[in-house]
C-alpha cells in the first residue's frame, strides 16, 4: 500500500491517448487505473506487460513498471517476471491478435496457473495493421482480409482459458460500469486470471460491419455467451506448488560428478577402442560404463559414447568406449580394435565399423552371431560353463568380465571395484555374483 494513493496511475503528460476517436482502449486503461487505485498499490509494485498492436501503445501511459515485448509472447514474459518476483502485481494487456498468435502461451499459462492477470482487448480485428481478420472475428464479417465475409469460426478466448484450468476467468465489455471492480477481483485471485473484454474498433470493424455497442451485445447473445465471472477456482497457483517443490528438495544434496580415485594400475600402452553391440534391455550402456570406470580406477583416460534409438526397450544398443594411457582427444570410433556382439540388432548396427576392422582387430561374438563379413579375427565369447543361466539376463556384464580377462586392459579387481562404486547395491550384488564365475 502506498500513501498518498495516486489519483490516477496514468501519466498525465502523455495524454491524450493516441488511440483513434471512439476506440474503447482508453476506457479499459482508465478502468485499470481505477482498479490500481482501489487496491492502493504503489506504482513500483505493478508491472504492466503489453503485447503488440494498438494495445501495445499502452505501456507508456502508466506510472508503473512496464515491459513491451514481442507479438503474442506477453504472457510468457509476465509469467517469468512473476516467477522471479512474486511480490510484484503483473498485468498483461493483449489484443485478440496476440491471443491468436500466442494462443499456445495463453492456454498453457492457464494450465500452469501462474499468478498473472491477463486483460484481453478484444475488438474482433487487427487495428494497427489495417483491420485484418483475427481469431475472434465473427463469421461473415467484412475485414481487409475477408472482403466478402470471414469463413472461420471465432475463437472463444475466455472459454479456452477456462477449459484449460485458469483460476479466474471472466468476460466483460469495455462499457461495463464495474470493470474496475472486476479487474481488482482478477488481480486479487491467487493464480492465473483473465478477463476477455469485448470492445469496439471504430477505425475498421465498426464502420465495415455496422457493429456498434448494441450489435456487440446482440452478438454475445446469439453466441449464448454471457458476461461476468465464468470460473473461479482455488487451484494452487504455480508459485504455491513450486514453493512446495523447493521445500521438499532443499535438503537434497546438490549434483556432483562421479569421483573415481586411482586404485589400480594398468600396462596398456596404446589406446583401445571397444564397441559393445547389443540390444535394448541387455544393459549394454551400463556395461560400457563399468569398463570405462574400471579403466579410470586404473589410472587410464576414458570416454564412453552411447548410441540407441529414440525409443527405449527396443532395437539396438551400442556403447563405444575408448581406453587410453594418454588423454582421449578423438572420442569417436571409426575402426574399433575390439567389437563384442551380443545381439543381432547391435550386430546389424555396427556393420560399417566391422567392415573397417583389420586383421589385427578382434570381433567377439555371442552364440549364433559369428560369421561376420570383416577382416578382423573372429572369436566366440566363451563364457565359463557355470554362467549358462546368467547369459540371457546378464550378457553385457558377462561380456565386460570376459573382455577384461582376455585383454590386458586393467586388473579384474578394477572391474569389480567399478561395480561396487557406480552401481546401486542390489544391482552390484547381482553383477558381482555374475563376475565371480571368472575367478
Amino acid at each position, binding site marked *: 500500500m502506498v500513501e498518498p494513493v495516486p489519483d490516477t496511475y496514468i501519466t498525465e503528460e502523455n495524454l491524450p491517448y493516441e488511440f483513434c476517436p471512439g476506440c474503447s482502449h482508453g476506457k479499459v486503461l482508465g478502468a485499470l487505473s481505477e482498479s490500481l487505485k482501489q487496491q492502493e498499490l504503489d506504482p513500483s509494485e505493478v508491472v504492466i506487460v503489453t503485447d503488440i498492436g494498438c494495445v501495445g501503445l499502452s505501456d507508456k501511459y502508466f506510472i508503473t513498471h512496464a515491459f513491451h515485448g514481442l507479438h503474442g509472447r506477453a504472457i510468457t514474459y509476465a509469467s517469468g517476471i512473476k516467477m522471479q518476483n512474486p511480490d510484484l502485481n503483473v498485468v498483461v494487456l493483449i489484443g485478440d491478435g496476440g491471443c491468436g498468435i500466442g494462443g499456445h502461451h495463453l492456454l498453457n499459462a492457464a494450465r500452469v496457473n501462474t499468478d498473472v492477470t491477463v486483460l484481453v482487448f478484444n475488438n474482433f480485428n487487427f487495428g494497427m495493421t489495417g483491420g485484418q481478420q483475427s481469431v475472434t472475428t465473427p463469421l461473415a464479417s467484412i475485414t481487409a482480409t475477408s472482403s466478402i465475409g470471414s469463413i472461420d469460426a471465432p475463437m472463444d478466448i475466455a472459454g479456452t482459458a477456462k477449459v484449460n484450468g485458469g483460476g479466474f476467468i471472466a468476460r466483460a465489455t469495455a462499457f461495463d460500469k464495474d470493470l474496475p471492480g472486476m479487474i481488482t477481483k482478477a488481480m486479487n485471485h491467487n493464480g492465473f486470471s483473465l478477463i476477455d473484454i469485448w470492445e469496439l474498433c471504430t477505425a475498421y470493424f465498426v464502420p465495415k460491419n455496422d457493429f456498434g455497442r448494441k450489435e456487440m451485445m446482440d452478438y454475445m447473445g446469439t453466441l449464448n455467451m454471457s458476461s461476468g465471472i465464468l470460473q473461479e477456482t482455488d487451484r494452487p497457483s504455480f508459485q504455491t506448488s513450486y514453493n512446495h517443490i523447493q521445500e521438499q*528438495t532443499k535438503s537434497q544434496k546438490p549434483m556432483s560428478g562421479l569421483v573415481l580415485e586411482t586404485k589400480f594400475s594398468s600396462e596398456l600402452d596404446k589406446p583401445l577402442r571397444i564397441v559393445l553391440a547389443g540390444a535394448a534391455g541387455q544393459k549394454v550402456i551400463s556395461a560400457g560404463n563399468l569398463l570405462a570406470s574400471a579403466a*579410470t580406477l586404473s589410472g587410464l583416460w576414458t570416454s564412453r559414447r552411447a548410441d540407441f534409438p529414440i525409443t527405449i526397450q527396443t532395437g539396438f544398443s551400442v556403447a563405444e568406449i575408448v581406453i587410453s594411457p594418454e588423454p582421449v582427444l578423438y572420442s569417436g570410433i571409426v575402426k574399433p580394435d575390439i567389437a563384442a556382439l551380443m545381439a543381432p540388432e547391435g550386430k546389424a548396427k555396427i556393420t560399417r565399423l566391422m567392415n573397417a576392422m583389420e586383421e589385427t582387430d578382434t570381433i567377439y561374438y555371442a552364440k549364433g552371431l559369428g560369421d561376420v563379413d570383416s577382416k578382423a579375427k573372429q572369436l566366440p565369447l566363451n563364457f565359463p560353463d557355470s554362467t549358462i543361466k546368467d547369459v540371457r539376463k546378464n550378457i553385457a556384464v558377462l561380456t565386460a568380465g570376459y573382455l577384461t580377462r582376455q585383454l590386458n586392459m586393467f586388473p579384474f579387481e578394477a572391474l569389480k571395484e567399478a561395480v561396487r562404486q557406480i552401481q546401486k547395491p542390489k544391482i552390484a550384488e547381482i553383477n558381482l555374483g555374475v563376475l565371480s564365475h571368472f575367478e
Partner: protein
Amino acid sequence: MVDGAAAIARGALDAGCNFYAGYPITPASGILAHMLRELPKVGGIGFQGEDEISSIGHCIGAASAGATVFTATSGPGLSLYSENIGLAIMMEIPLVIAISQRLGPSTGAATASAQGDIQFMRWCTSGGYPVIVLAPTNIPESYHLTKRAFKLAKRFRNPVFIATDKDTVMTTESVPVDEMINAPDWPEIPTEPVGKPLDPYQINGTIHHYTGSSHTEEGYITKDPDIIAQFNERLKNKIESHIDEISLVKADLQEGADTLIISYGVSARSMEAVVIQLRSQGEKVSALTVYSLWPIPEKKIQDCLRGIKRIIIPEMNHGQYRHEIERLVNRDIELIGVNRVDTILITPEEIMETYHG
C-alpha cells in the same frame, strides 16, 4: 567421470544462475533435466516451457525482474529462440544460451554432432547486432566457459552463447578433478557493466520501462533518428569495442612452422591429436583453438600468421568459419578446409591426409 551436460549445468549453478526455462530437445535435454532438478534445491526456479518461444520468453521476463537466467537448446530450438534473442539484445538483457549442435538441416540427425550453427548463432536475429559465442572443446572447458559466459552476459548485458555439440554434451569422460576445480589461465572479465547496469523491477525501486521498440535510455518509445542512431551504435560498439577483452584462444605455435591448423569445439580435439602426432614425427606445425568464435578474435588470429603459408581448418560444416578467416589473411596464404557433415566426427587421420596434401 562426467558428461558435458552436467559440466555445463554445474557451471551455470556455480555462476549464480537462479532461473532456467527450456524445452526438451536432443542433444540438449540433459542440461534441462539437471537444471530442473537442481534449481529448486537452491531456491531457484526451473521451468519447462510449452515450447522454445515460451521458454526464452520466461527467461527474458525473469531477467527483467533480476534473475540470472540460462537456457539450452539445439539448432531447431534456436530457430524458435530467434526473435526473442533480438528482444534480449534490444532490452539489454543478460542471457546465456547453450546450443548443443546436431546435424541439420531441419530435424537432420538428432543424435549426431555438427558445427553447422556457427553462423546461425551470430546472425540468428533481425538487425545484425553482435552476440558473443564461446566454444568449449572438452568437458572442463564446458564448465569454465559456461561460468565465463555468465560474466560476459552480465558485463555486456547481451545474449552470450555456448556453442557445443552432441559429442561434448552427451559423452561421458574421465576428467582430472583439478581441471574441473582450477580455472584455466584466462584473463578475468571485469565485473563493472559496460553501459547501464541492469535495473530490475523492484518494489520501491526506480520505475523502469523495458521495450523492444527503439527507445530512449529511459525506456520510452522514440522515433527520433538521432536518439535511435546513438542507441543502436552503442549496442554495436559495446561489444565491438571490447573485442580484445572478449577474445579467447589457445595458440600453440611452433617456431619455423609454415602450416597453421585452426579449429574450435569438438573438432579442435582431432586437431590436437594430429599436432601431437606430427610433432612426434619431427614435423613443425602450429595450432590455434578459437574459444571466442564471435566477435571474431581477428587480432589473435592474425598474431599467429608469421611465416604461415597454409592454414587448415577442420570443422563439421561446409566451411563456415573458414570463410571468416579468409578475409583476415593475405591471399598468398592457402586455406584448406577439412569438412564433414555425415554424423561422423572429423578424424585425426583426415586432417593428417590434408596436411600431407
